[in-house]
């Protein structure tokens, strides 16, 4: 086993939680090493290819090589619940979100809503909820606000501030004007106004004009889960790591899979162990270590990093690592616009592609409605956000056109395969007679004892190391809030004149929106990290991805992960400076 020279900072992972640390510390003069499991791709390797992104999931490991075990709750013959794990190589349900330099931030939608002050004090504000481990954050919105503003500048957020009932306090305006919008955006504005809603422009981590060495959005039409080939999307790679490397102080080691952070008999970290691109075991040491591999893998790494002082895993002597894992509650819904019912002008507007809808509703970010069953005694509950979008993937859209319901009573209940002229007609109708407007609801996924990460005792990855086992229990309250918000969104679709309106709220986790597992807090018995995201039990260990969140808020996580990582970067910088003197 070889040992490399000492680095100032060693970061495991390279996504939204890691890249601000690399950016800020390398600019401050620290020698930074970033270890990333995946390859280092650039804009030249991202295409609008549905086969790559959706069908073959080509930026992620093959599930036979690396996977997870997912535990779901079932009922036995006597209606008694039990938890049963299933390997994702058996289910086909991948839990990877982009194993490349820059991580999943390469493939985010970039809906950059801030958290609101209430998100930092859910327990104080709404009280405890039975069966949920709700806790206030040890910091306030005011402490994070300057860092949201910093992300808007450094990563590049395009948007427009409008007055609305739940507008959070802001110290600055958006540094970039909004990206171009579709006609649907003004349709939504009008319909919302008509029924007393406040549609708000969605801030996006997408450059609306060239800056910082990156091109502007080119409106290629496929954004969201696709990698950006113009550099406009504010991935950690495009926005931060490229600049970090340009300082001469940051080294990115791609194809480096970290499997253990070793510690000695005094409980001090002795080094980070990884497999290099050829599968050889290597190790490095640094003055300060930062873990940011996305919530599930961060907990897995700490749990796997046992040592004499940490028999249950690094920084886990109180058994908190992996606990209170979070996803996003909510669901999806949709409504169709039937071309034959609309004017030519409207149809032409609907058919436009390229720009974005960029509209959201946050009227019920806090629910104040005694009729809501999930409310506390004061009729108050935490609500959430509704975003609107169009889907684009054509192969996914074609799937299903080959099936026809059999009306014949003899075969009733069965679907029949179509081919020939019937198939052609079915495909043509599917693609050219209507367009579906969709919405996504984001609400809090309450932390519970039934949602956590542990190490699987049997299943290992291609290197022979135990994989993460994830129990995915959810709280009933999440569904109640999700359904409440979905009904509100459905009303907007009605006002827009959409048909076939429906929504679906379920307790299945959104695997691309994960947080928690290494809570920050003031009490080492109930949290893994202190308010600076430094491990209570290990002085030179920080966790800077979404793992720190005790509660997740009701917006996608990436913006807050970025903002918190910039905040923690200041703490690490101060820590590093003390080690210099």
């Amino acid at each position, binding site marked *: 086993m070889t040992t490399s020279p000492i680095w100032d900072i060693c970061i495991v992972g390279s996504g939204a939680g890691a890249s601000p640390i690399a950016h800020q510390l390398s600019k401050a003069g620290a020698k930074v090493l970033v270890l990333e499991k995946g390859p280092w791709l650039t804009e030249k390797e991202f*295409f609008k290819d549905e086969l790559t992104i959706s069908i073959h999931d080509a930026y992620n490991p093959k599930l036979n090589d690396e996977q997870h075990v997912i535990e779901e709750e079932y009922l036995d013959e006597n209606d008694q619940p039990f938890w049963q794990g299933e390997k994702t190589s058996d289910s086909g*349900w991948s839990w990877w979100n982009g194993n490349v330099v820059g991580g999943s931030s390469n493939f985010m939608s970039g809906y950059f809503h801030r958290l609101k002050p209430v998100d930092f004090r859910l327990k104080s504000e709404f009280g405890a909820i039975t069966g949920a481990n709700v806790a206030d954050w040890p910091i306030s919105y005011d402490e994070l606000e300057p860092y949201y503003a910093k992300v808007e500048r450094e990563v590049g957020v395009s948007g427009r501030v409008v007055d609305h009932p739940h507008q959070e306090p802001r110290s600055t305006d958006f540094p970039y004007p909004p990206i171009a919008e579709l006609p649907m955006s003004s349709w939504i504005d009008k319909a919302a106004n008509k029924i007393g809603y406040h549609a708000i422009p969605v801030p996006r981590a997408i450059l609306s004009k060239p800056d910082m060495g990156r091109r502007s959005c080119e409106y290629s039409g496929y954004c969201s889960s696709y990698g950006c080939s113009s550099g406009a999307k504010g991935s950690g790679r495009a926005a931060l790591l490229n600049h970090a490397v340009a300082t001469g102080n940051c080294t990115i080691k791609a194809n480096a899979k970290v499997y253990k952070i070793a510690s000695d008999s005094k409980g001090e970290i002795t080094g980070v162990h990884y497999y290099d691109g050829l599968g050889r075991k290597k190790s490095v040491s640094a003055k300060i270590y930062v873990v940011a591999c996305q919530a599930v893998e961060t907990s897995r790494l700490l749990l796997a990093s046992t040592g004499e002082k940490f028999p249950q895993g690094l920084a886990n002597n109180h058994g908190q690592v992996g606990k209170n894992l979070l996803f996003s509650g909510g669901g999806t819904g949709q409504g169709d616009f039937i071309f034959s019912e609309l004017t030519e002008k409207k149809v032409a507007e609907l058919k436009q592609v390229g720009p974005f809808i960029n509209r959201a509703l946050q009227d019920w970010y806090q629910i104040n409605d005694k009729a809501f069953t999930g409310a506390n005694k004061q009729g108050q509950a935490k609500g959430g956000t509704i975003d609107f979008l169009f889907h684009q993937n054509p192969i996914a859209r074609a799937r299903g056109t080959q099936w026809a319901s059999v009306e014949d009573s003899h075969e009733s209940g069965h679907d029949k395969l179509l*081919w020939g*002229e019937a198939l052609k007609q079915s495909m043509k109708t599917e693609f050219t007679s209507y367009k579906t407007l969709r919405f996504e609801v984001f609400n809090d996924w309450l932390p519970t004892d039934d949602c956590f990460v542990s190490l699987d005792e049997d299943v290992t990855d*291609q290197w022979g190391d135990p994989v993460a086992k994830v129990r995915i229990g959810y709280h009933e309250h999440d569904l109640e809030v999700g359904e409440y918000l979905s009904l509100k969104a459905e009303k907007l679709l009605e006002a827009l004149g959409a048909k076939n309106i429906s929504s679906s709220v379920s307790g299945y986790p959104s695997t691309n929106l994960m947080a928690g597992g290494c809570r920050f807090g003031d009490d080492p018995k109930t949290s893994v990290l202190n308010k600076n995201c430094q491990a209570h039990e290990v002085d030179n260990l920080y966790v800077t991805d979404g793992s720190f969140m005790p509660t997740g808020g009701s917006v996608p996580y990436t913006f807050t992960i970025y903002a918190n990582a910039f905040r923690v970067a200041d703490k690490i910088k101060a820590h590093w400076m003390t080690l210099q003197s």
Partner: protein
Amino acid sequence: MPPISSFFDKTYRTPDFLTHKQMKRRAFLKSAAGASAIAAMPVISLSAMQQVQFGELIKTDPWLTLDATLNHLLPSSPTGPSAQEIQATAYLFQVMTVQPTEQEETDFIFKGVGWLNDYANSQKSQNFAPLTFEDKEQLLSGISKSTAGQNWLNTLLGYIFQAMLAPPSYGGNPNGIGYQWLEHQAGFPLPEKGQRFFELPSRARIAVQVQSDNKEPLIARKKNNSQRINKA
């Protein structure tokens, strides 16, 4: 279990590769918004040698039957492009020979050819390819009533969709004919040859074999008489 001998074999069970494909992706918040102008589209997808090879192969089974089946599933007509026009057989050939496709799937597709011809011979006393349109229709309707037959046809239909709507560099959809017919605006850039999903720089693929003993499925898989608690 003895090998499956026909589409109507009662011991047939849906192969794992199909079960995985049929499973809905539950990462429901992953989505793609927007779209834009049609990009430049290359026509050629197979190398010259592959084209020669394909030209010869298509004259004999199993490709003769696969070509005939695909052409029947999406026939030539004024209403829209045919399997031939979207190069569905060339696309499938590429899936079976160039793309990394699971062996279980390619085996299933080829086995189906044998089962279809056995059935054609039992019903019409000759192979599928030379039959009339009506006879072919009757046979495909016949096999579609079996699970295996439905799975096989559905697999081919899935590849027709890909041949129609995947970037042309994969071998189908020449000059974006499928996009044009379905009024779909492709995104850009589209991948060229050398940039397709299986040609991108991959992450470390470790050739170590020491974990092979650990790769056995070790957890109980069957959940007889149980169901997920449905709270939705």
